[in-house]
């Protein structure tokens, strides 16, 4: 029984290691709050419901891409019957989310999503600092 103190010390270290995620969240301030997204002023409803967009906007954008580029289908009819021009810059950004960094990027940063490579070609009108202008 002369190892009692060592055993208790070991248990303590083990417990501390196991509970790190919980203690870290308790001490870190504000890291658990949802990102504050800048919503468009002129529109209240995206092309589909918020839940659908939150879970499946990437699939919708891929479908738009396939429709426009490969099938030459340039309009999208939403499930509630409204029609939209298909376009990442021209529809999503120009019509609603003028500031990509306050909407797309904020949520992607929060969710730990890498910047999608859409923007290597598609233009964010707010950020054309790369041009020779």
């Amino acid at each position, binding site marked *: 029984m002369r190892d009692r103190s060592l055993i208790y010390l070991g248990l303590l270290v083990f417990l501390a290691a196991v509970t790190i995620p919980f203690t870290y969240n308790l001490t870190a301030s504000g890291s658990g709050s949802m990102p504050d997204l800048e919503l468009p002023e002129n529109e209240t409803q995206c092309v589909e419901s918020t839940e659908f967009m939150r879970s499946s906007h990437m699939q919708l954008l891929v479908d738009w891409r396939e429709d426009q580029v490969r099938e*030459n289908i340039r309009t999208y009819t939403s499930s509630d019957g409204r029609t939209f021009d298909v376009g990442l810059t*021209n529809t999503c950004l*120009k019509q609603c989310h003028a500031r990509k960094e306050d909407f797309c990027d904020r949520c992607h940063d929060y969710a730990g999503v890498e910047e999608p490579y859409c923007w290597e070609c598609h233009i964010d009108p707010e950020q054309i600092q790369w*041009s*020779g*202008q």
Partner: protein
Amino acid sequence: MIISRKKFLKIAGVSALAVTGERLARNFAGAMQSEEQKTAGALTTKRLAMVIDLKKCAQEEGCTQCIDACHRIHNVPVIDDRNHEISWIWKDEFKHAFHSAHNEYTAKHIEHLPVLLLCNHCGNPPCVRVCPTKATWKREADGIVVMDWHRCIGCRYCMAACPYGSRSFNWTDPRPNIKEVNVDFPTRTKGVVEKCNFCDERLAKGKLPACVESCPQNALFFGDVDDAGSEIRQVLASEFAIRRKPELGTNPEVFYIV
């Protein structure tokens, strides 16, 4: 029941004949049907083509308005290094553009005549045949040879296959070399091939290609060569027009009035 060897072979033979016969009949019926569908589709489709009147084009010396308009609208970078240059539409001398029509006695004014060059949107495009990812294909509805830059892997087979040099490769990020950005049209990225798209994004909105619209001499004609009543057919019926390297069997859709 006991079956003799002879009887067994007879039954097997007849069964095999029945099975293959039915398959043959089905395949034949299928072939007939698809042939019908093809002809039915041909009535509704178009064959977009361009006529360039070189006499009119040469009237304004050094004019680059069509080139400027096209390259501005499509965010084509301006790169001075000729090895990295990107062009959708450009000019070269007659002796280079129509190599086989040129000889050592060709009149000087013809030899050095500037010829406007762009993708020929071939009827039988070799670039499409070699693309391993189907990033380029001939659109059935109007015959435009389009590209899907999302799918291009930059292998440059299409560039090797194109006998007109119509395709350019982005060796570097094109963005820093775009002088004036058009936010309505995407840029390309490093490692992607690009070329003229006959302004398919403008055609979708009922507009003419940018080069045709911007030409101050009205030297460019654009339309459906399958439509006998179209302006382009009237131009082709009234003037002698040639095409670049038709002997290769690519069936180019850009015609030149010399």
